């Protein structure tokens, strides 16, 4: 099963929509609740990253028998230094985004902690592609 969602940069009112839809579907097909919790944490952070940093993006989720692969492909500024971005506490978020309680430099570490694999490719000035995978067992 493949699902696709569009995410617009700056649209905080809708941030979390894709996460909530995917959570619902994983629940319906009987995926282990602990796995769902991890997927939801990682996906929500990734979704908020598109809203907070990029112009727009597409989330594609492939639900297979053994796990879920989610690709988040955005058009945006890209990440110049990925190892630095992975550090807990490092953030480039705007003051407005920080005021909402985001931008504490926890998003990418949360994503890493809650996925079985996380891959980030980024081209500065073009965009970022995040691929994450969670096994169902």
């Amino acid at each position, binding site marked *: 099963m493949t699902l696709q969602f569009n995410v617009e940069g700056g649209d905080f009112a809708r941030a979390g929509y894709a*996460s909530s839809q995917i959570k619902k579907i994983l629940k319906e097909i009987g995926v282990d609740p602990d796995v769902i*919790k991890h997927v*939801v944490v990682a996906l*929500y*952070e990734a979704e908020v990253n598109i809203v907070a940093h990029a112009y727009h993006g597409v989330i594609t989720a492939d639900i297979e028998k053994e796990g879920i692969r989610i690709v988040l492909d955005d058009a945006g500024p890209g990440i110049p230094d990925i190892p630095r971005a992975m550090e807990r506490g490092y953030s480039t978020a705007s003051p407005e985004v920080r005021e909402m*309680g985001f931008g504490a430099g926890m998003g990418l570490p949360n994503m890493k902690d809650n996925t079985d694999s996380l891959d980030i490719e980024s081209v500065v000035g073009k965009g970022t592609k995040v691929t994450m995978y969670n096994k169902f067992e």
Partner: protein
Amino acid sequence: MTVKDIVEKFGLKVYSGASGLGREVKGGYCSDLLSDVMGFAHEGSVLVTLQAHKNVMAIASLKDLAAIVLVKGIKPEEETADASEAEGIPVLGTSEQCFEFSGKLYDYIEGK
């Protein structure tokens, strides 16, 4: 213990989501950093926070939190209250600040 028990014990305001007053409370979490809540709050927790915008409800729903308590008399934004109604997750309020309220809530939850 349910959300209603906490509302009655501490005389909390129920701003929205009253249909969820029967939700079971398993613990509490105190933070204004939403990624912190996302990463570390547990299902069934009461979130004590001063974040009143809609994203706090998105997190409450995704994490299956029991309720949100806004401290210092802060009121939920309209979109937050609407989402709370739709999700059946109560948004509550106290005039106390975070440290005072969390301390009392901790004692109450641990004492039960």
